[in-house]
């Protein structure tokens, strides 16, 4: 059960990371360093 919830949480973080790497951060004026694995 807990592992399932954590997996969903991890998936959400993955989606946010890939979206964040491909678009500007919505309303923040700072962008964290993009991990090498997400750089195209």
């Amino acid at each position, binding site marked *: 059960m*807990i592992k399932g919830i954590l997996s969903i*949480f*991890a998936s959400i973080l993955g989606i*946010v990371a*890939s979206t964040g790497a491909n678009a500007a951060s919505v*309303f*923040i*004026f700072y962008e*964290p360093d993009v991990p090498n694995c997400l750089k195209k």
Partner: protein
Amino acid sequence: MNRDFALKISTKLAKKLDGSKQDVEIWAYGLEIILNSVIKFLIIAVLSVFLGIFQYTMFCIIAFAFFRHFGGGVHFSTYLRCLSFGVVNFLISGEIASLDKVLIVHEILFYITLALGVAAILKWIPADTKKKPIKEKEKIKKQKIKTTVVLISWLILIIFLDKHGKDTYIPAITLGAFESLLFMTPFGYWTINEIDNFLNKIFIKTEEVK
């Protein structure tokens, strides 16, 4: 600070889910984006409630976010600067948008924003950064098209609200769009970079004194 916290959580998550080193990097990056946005949003939301400008500030942020997501824009070099500037900027914008001004001021701002939008799409979008450079022609074209859709939707929304007499939030929506577009222009980049450089100098001087 957020980076360290995000890394700690992601490392723990990887232990539970047997994630790889790459997974940790991706999750930490995703979590950092969420933390940065949530902290900033909460501070703005709470302060705008206290100032009685919550709705105006939110409309301003929503308009800003739509343009920025697709069009891009300049960034500060540290999160603290981003947070400070963003909070002050959005609260001032909310306050300005809540003021009763002469209609002509709204109209002028609307036409300036529209012209800026067209110019930005033609010349500066996607407004990329060193961390996320956009060079592919196909991607540039896509970003321009998406921002054009946002600009047309913004235009339709303004006309709709105006025709139906619900013009209370038009200044907020217009101001949010204007600011977002301004930070895509060379002037926007210059302004933020100058502030950033100035703060870098102060920071170095403070370190030297210590």
